[in-house]
C-alpha cells in the first residue's frame, strides 16, 4: 500500500488541473505579449486565471502578480517593500517560525545592512500574537511579515488582528499564505493584508508557479527585471499553462473548502487521536484548534525523526519530519525549538499531512503500523527508559 501523507511538502496535481493545462502547452501556446491570435488566446487564459485567483482571496485582478513560486513571492515582497520604503525607515518585524523563504531572506537583508530585524518569539503553539507585533512596532518600522499558517505544525495565526494593527500604524503587512491558501478562508481586504504569497503546488496545482498579491496603491520594485509583463511588476514570459493550472486548482480547492475541511478534518482527528491512544510519550505540536485541517505533528520521545521516516517509507508511507527543505540538514526544526521544545524532543518529530484524496483505509493502515515502528526504534534507543523496555 502506498500512502502519501506529505501534502504540506507538495501535492499531487489533480486530473482536472492537468487537463486544463494541456491546451496551453500545445494549442494556446502563444506569448501573451505578442500581437496575434495565438497571443490573444494566451492572454485570455491569463486574464481569466487572474480573475479566478482574485475572486478566491477577495482581491481585484490587477492586484494579482504571477511569479515562479512561493519563495519568489516572499523574496519579492520582502525586498520590494523594504526598497520602496527606504526613506521611511528600515525596521522589519517577523516571527521565529517563518518559512526559510522569509526568515533567511530577512536575515540576509540584515547582514547586507538593508534592515534592522526584530524576530518575534512565539508561544508554545507557535502563535504570533497581535500584541507582540504591536509592542515591537517602531516609528521606523516599514514592514511586518507574519505567516498565515505554519508549514510544520499547522498553526494558524490571528492574521486579521495583526493586519489591523499594521494598517492602523500605516505599516506594510506581508503574510506568507503558502500553506493557508485553499485550505482556510482568506479575505485580503477584511484582513488588511498588503502583500501575500501563494504557491500552486500546495493545493494540487503545479510546482514552480505562485502569486504575489500586491494591494492596489502599494508599489514595490520588481525582483526580476526585464520585459513589461505583469504590468511591469515581474519580468519573464508568463508561464501560461502553470498559471492556468494554479487558477484551476485554487478554484476547485476553494469550492470544496468547507466540505473538505470537514472530511479531511475528520480523518485528521482520527489520526491525531489514534496516535495519542496507541503510542505513549508523544506530544502534539501546534495549536489544538487554530490549526490547518490537514496537519498532524507529534513529537515522539526517545527516537529520531529520520529513522521514523525511513521505517514508514519502507512500509510505503510518505511523511515528513521538520520541513522538507531542511531534511538532510542536521539541525532540528527551528519551529519546534522556537516553540520551546528541548533539542532531543525536537529531533523526534513526525509530520503527517493529509489531502482530500486521503482515505480512511490509509489512515487505518498508518495507525496499525506506526505503533510497531515506534516500538522497534525505541527498543533500539539508549534514551528509552528501562522500565518501559522490559
Amino acid at each position, binding site marked *: 500500500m502506498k500512502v502519501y501523507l506529505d501534502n504540506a511538502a507538495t501535492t499531487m496535481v489533480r486530473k482536472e488541473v492537468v487537463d486544463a493545462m494541456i491546451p496551453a502547452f500545445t494549442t494556446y501556446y502563444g506569448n501573451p505579449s505578442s500581437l496575434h491570435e495565438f497571443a490573444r488566446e494566451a492572454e485570455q487564459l491569463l486574464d481569466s486565471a487572474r480573475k479566478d485567483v482574485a475572486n478566491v482571496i477577495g482581491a481585484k485582478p490587477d492586484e494579482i502578480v504571477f511569479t515562479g513560486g512561493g519563495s519568489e513571492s516572499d523574496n519579492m515582497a520582502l525586498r520590494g517593500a523594504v526598497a520602496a520604503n527606504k526613506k521611511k525607515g528600515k525596521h522589519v518585524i517577523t516571527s521565529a517560525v517563518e518559512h526559510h523563504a522569509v526568515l533567511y531572506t530577512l536575515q540576509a537583508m540584515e547582514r547586507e545592512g538593508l534592515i534592522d530585524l526584530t524576530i518575534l518569539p512565539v508561544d508554545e503553539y507557535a502563535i504570533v500574537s497581535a500584541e507582540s507585533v504591536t509592542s515591537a512596532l517602531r516609528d521606523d518600522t516599514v514592514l511586518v511579515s507574519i505567516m498565515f499558517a505554519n508549514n510544520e505544525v499547522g498553526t494558524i495565526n490571528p492574521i486579521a488582528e495583526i493586519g489591523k494593527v499594521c494598517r492602523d500604524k500605516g505599516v506594510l503587512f506581508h503574510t506568507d499564505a503558502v500553506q493557508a491558501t485553499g485550505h482556510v478562508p482568506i479575505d485580503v481586504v477584511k484582513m488588511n493584508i498588503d502583500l501575500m504569497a501563494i504557491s500552486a503546488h500546495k493545493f494540487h496545482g503545479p510546482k514552480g508557479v505562485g502569486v504575489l498579491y500586491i494591494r492596489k496603491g502599494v508599489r514595490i520594485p520588481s525582483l526580476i527585471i526585464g520585459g513589461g509583463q505583469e504590468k511591469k511588476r515581474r519580468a519573464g514570459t508568463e508561464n501560461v499553462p502553470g498559471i492556468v493550472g494554479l487558477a484551476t486548482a485554487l478554484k476547485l480547492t476553494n469550492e470544496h473548502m468547507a466540505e473538505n475541511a470537514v472530511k479531511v478534518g475528520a480523518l485528521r482527528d482520527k489520526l491525531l487521536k489514534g496516535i495519542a491512544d496507541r503510542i505513549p510519550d508523544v506530544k502534539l505540536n501546534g495549536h489544538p484548534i487554530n490549526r490547518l485541517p490537514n496537519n498532524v505533528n507529534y513529537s515522539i520521545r526517545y527516537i529520531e525523526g529520520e529513522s521514523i521516516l*525511513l521505517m514508514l517509507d519502507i512500509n510505503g508511507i510518505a511523511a515528513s519530519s521538520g520541513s522538507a527543505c531542511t531534511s*538532510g540538514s542536521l539541525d*532540528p526544526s527551528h519551529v519546534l525549538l522556537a516553540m520551546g521544545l528541548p*533539542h*532531543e524532543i525536537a*529531533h523526534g518529530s513526525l509530520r503527517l499531512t493529509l489531502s482530500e484524496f486521503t482515505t480512511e483505509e490509509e489512515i487505518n493502515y498508518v495507525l496499525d503500523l506506526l505503533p510497531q515502528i515506534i516500538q522497534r526504534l525505541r527498543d*533500539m534507543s*539508549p534514551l528509552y527508559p528501562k522500565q518501559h523496555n522490559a
Partner: protein
Amino acid sequence: MYTERVMDHFKNPRNVGEIEDASGVGTVGNAKCGDIMQIFLDIDENEIIRDVKFKTFGCGAAVATSSMATEMIKGKSVEDALKITNAAVVEALEGLPPAKIHCSVLAEEAVKAAIEDYMKKRDEAK
C-alpha cells in the same frame, strides 16, 4: 539517498541490544545533535571481542554505521578493533551522503570509547 547496504543495516540492524555486566561500554554523541551511540563489549581473557551490542538514537545512517561497526569488530582482538576507522565503516556501507559522514565518525568513536572503558576497568582491576 542511502545505498542498499545502508538500508539493509538500517532495516535489519545487527547486534542491537545491551550486554549486562559488559567488559566495556562507550557512549558518544548527545541528544542535542540528534545522535547518541552506545556500544557494549564482551571481551574474553585473550582480549578477543566475544560479543558486541549497540543502542542508537539517531538517523538511518547512525543506526547503519553502529550496526556495521559492531559487525566489523565482532570476533576481532581489541588491538585490531582499535584500528577501525570511520572511512572503513563508510566503505563497508558502500558510501554515505556527505551530510552523514559524521555518523561514521561517531561509530568509530563509540567503539574506541567502549574499548577505553574496558582498558580502564582492566587496569583498575590489576
